[in-house]
């Protein structure tokens, strides 16, 4: 090997100093080859290399970059050969920060995939490849029965623990570990029961088909029916309805709590002959859970008021 760079550390904290040395062995000599070792950082020549000749004839140059503030750069060890700068070896330098403590760790139990999806705030950019691992134990008290690590995909701040690793009705402790070349940090532990952080999908909201009706709905009333999201039929839940007349910037009006399922519900007290937007959401109840998103809107028009 003709030229060889060794670094104090390939990855340093942004702004720290880096020391490198380059050794050019004797068998590198060539006619017209200047033995003065030159350094390049990226495309720029770097002054300040201290060169010395070792007993065995090898040339060694050492350089210190006092404040390395690039997140990534290539350091090259060069020689001049017949007036042409020749690169003999190159080392990649990286700089960044150790990972901050991940915060705002929160989890949701998803009944479609039956997995527990946790997300967190990764904290400021570290400029370095940083691995986020969701770690968990199958109980908050004893740290036994660990669950396999859940490694987030690059650049992602969420990970999903599969059903087979979960005991849905027992508490478990969960935290996030962030790790890169400059250090490791660990989030505070979360203690939760998977089913108690279940977030349901919205219910299905329909209008009752007027043609099937014996009597049409009263003016200012609407007939609706809804059904919970199918995979959550076994979960007892309560729901909320919100409605808004399509009149400029009208506010939403909330109706609830409502049962999870009705064959028919008459919503009254509305403006007659007015188009309304309606949405519904449900939540596991009385056991704990998270509100579902609002269902897609249903648009309905109330009947005209019959002239007296």
């Amino acid at each position, binding site marked *: 090997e003709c030229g060889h760079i060794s670094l104090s550390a390939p990855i340093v904290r942004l702004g720290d100093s880096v020391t490198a040395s380059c050794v050019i062995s004797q068998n590198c000599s060539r006619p017209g080859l200047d033995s003065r070792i030159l350094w390049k950082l990226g495309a720029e020549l770097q002054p300040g290399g201290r060169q010395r000749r070792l007993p065995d004839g090898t040339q060694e140059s050492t350089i210190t970059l006092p404040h390395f503030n690039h997140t990534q750069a290539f350091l090259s060890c060069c020689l001049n050969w017949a007036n042409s700068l020749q690169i003999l070896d190159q080392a990649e330098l990286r700089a960044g920060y150790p990972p901050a403590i991940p915060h705002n760790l929160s989890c949701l139990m998803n009944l479609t995939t039956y997995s527990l999806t946790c997300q967190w705030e990764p904290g400021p950019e570290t400029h370095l490849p940083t691995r986020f691992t969701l770690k968990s134990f199958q109980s908050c008290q004893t740290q036994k029965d660990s669950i396999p690590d859940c490694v987030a995909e690059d650049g992602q701040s969420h990970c999903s623990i599969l059903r087979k690793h979960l005991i849905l009705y*027992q508490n478990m402790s969960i935290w996030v570990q962030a790790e890169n070349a400059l250090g490791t940090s660990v989030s505070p532990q979360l203690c939760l029961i998977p089913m108690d952080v279940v977030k349901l999908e919205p219910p299905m909201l329909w209008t009752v088909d007027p043609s099937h009706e014996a009597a049409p709905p009263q003016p200012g009333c609407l007939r609706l029916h809804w059904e919970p999201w199918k995979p959550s039929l076994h979960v007892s839940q309560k729901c909320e309805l919100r409605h808004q007349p399509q009149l400029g910037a009208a506010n939403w009006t909330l109706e609830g709590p409502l049962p999870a399922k009705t064959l028919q519900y008459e919503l009254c007290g509305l403006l007659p002959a007015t188009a309304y937007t309606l949405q519904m959401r449900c939540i596991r109840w009385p056991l704990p859970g998270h509100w579902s998103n609002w269902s897609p809107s249903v648009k309905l028009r109330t009947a005209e008021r019959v002239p007296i």
Partner: protein
Amino acid sequence: PLDPASSLPQSFLLKCLEQVRKIQSDSAALQEKLCATYKLCHPEELVLLGHFLGIPRTPLSGCPSQTLQLAGCLSQLHSGLFLYHGLLQALAGISPELAPTVDMLQLDVADFATTIWQQMEDLGVAPALQPTQGTMPTFTSAFQRRAGGVLVISHLQSFLKLAYRVLRYLAQP
């Protein structure tokens, strides 16, 4: 003996009811698939085979409301679930199409057993050691695994039906 009404937290009973409903829905899904795919729709056609294969049934005699002894009832509920977990495991390799449903069912039954065991521990009525699984039937053909599946699910559904009734009784305000 423990007074049934007061000593069981309402949240425990509500969780159990939820878990029973989930297992019942998983079981119904498996029954439908066994019937649709393999035309094995009537457990009563497989009773004799069940005898030969040695597929056990589990009583819940300690649970009916008249004779309810809570510790005994919880213990029977737990050992029944523990047995069904073992029987479901014995069905491993039933078929690629049914495997995901059997796996889900097994996990839900195991979770329900854990909920019961945890409550027995909280009440101080849990035995020192977890039960160990007895010998399980061995199924030597694909048909026996499917027929075994039909029988195990049918027994499990009856077991759950009684369990649900008891839990509803205990959960009455």
